[in-house]
């Protein structure tokens, strides 16, 4: 570690967020792998989207890890992408039922997983906002 590197954070809510993301990497990745390997023809769109969700969770895990180390740029993009994915696919699964003969991870906003897929990016964005608020200089010092 060079003197310019930020100190390595070990404590904080990001530990719980990363644990949740790791679980969803396992859950959605295994689900997508089994569905794509055994019955891809049944619901190709839904199963492909489950695989996309798994990739998003991998990216989200790394994004939170980077943000916890003082580099929030990737997380600022990735978490919004994830939230957009949950909202768009959740809405499509409700209004276009025929596109989803079987559920994907984000169908019905993640109801198959207790709506945790919808809550997770919101919680991560709140954490990001609280820990990486832009620092403004006090007026007295600036003057």
């Amino acid at each position, binding site marked *: 570690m060079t003197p310019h590197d930020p100190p390595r954070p070990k404590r904080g809510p990001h530990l*719980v967020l990363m644990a*949740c993301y790791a679980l969803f990497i396992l859950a959605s990745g295994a689900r997508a792998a089994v569905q794509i390997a055994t019955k891809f023809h049944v619901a190709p769109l839904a199963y492909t989207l489950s695989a996309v969700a798994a990739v998003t969770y991998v990216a989200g895990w790394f994004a939170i890890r980077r943000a916890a180390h003082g580099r929030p740029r990737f997380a600022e993009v990735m978490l919004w992408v994830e939230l957009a994915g949950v909202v768009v696919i959740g809405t499509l699964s409700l209004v276009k039922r025929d596109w989803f003969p079987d559920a994907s991870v984000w169908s019905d906003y993640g109801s198959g997983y207790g709506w945790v897929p919808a809550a997770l990016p919101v919680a991560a964005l709140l954490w990001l906002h609280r820990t990486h608020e832009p620092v403004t200089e006090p007026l007295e010092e600036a003057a």
Partner: protein
Amino acid sequence: MHGPLAPIAWIAVGYAAVVTAAAGLGLVLKAPRPRWLDQLAWMLEALCAVLALGALGSLLRGHRPESMSTHVGYMIAVVCILPVALGSVREERDSWSCGVVAVAALATGVVAVRLMMTR
């Protein structure tokens, strides 16, 4: 859930709920993670190992679940989640590490239920 594995599964699920509650309480109270919480979690791991071995024995005796790959996936997950979670916070003992244990114990309980549902 029925069959000879059901009592073990129910005990594992109930015990996972206790570990989740204890770890969640530690997080809410912002208490450093006590050693006994690790011991509770490893006891849950032992129960899950018994459950997974029972499920494996059932497979070896010729029982075929509706989806073999899903069932085997849950069998592996039920014994892997807690050791990975505890390993990731091995050096960290603040209250947020209680949150990691809570998430892992909750997930283990859910997977134990799913394991029995896919039999």
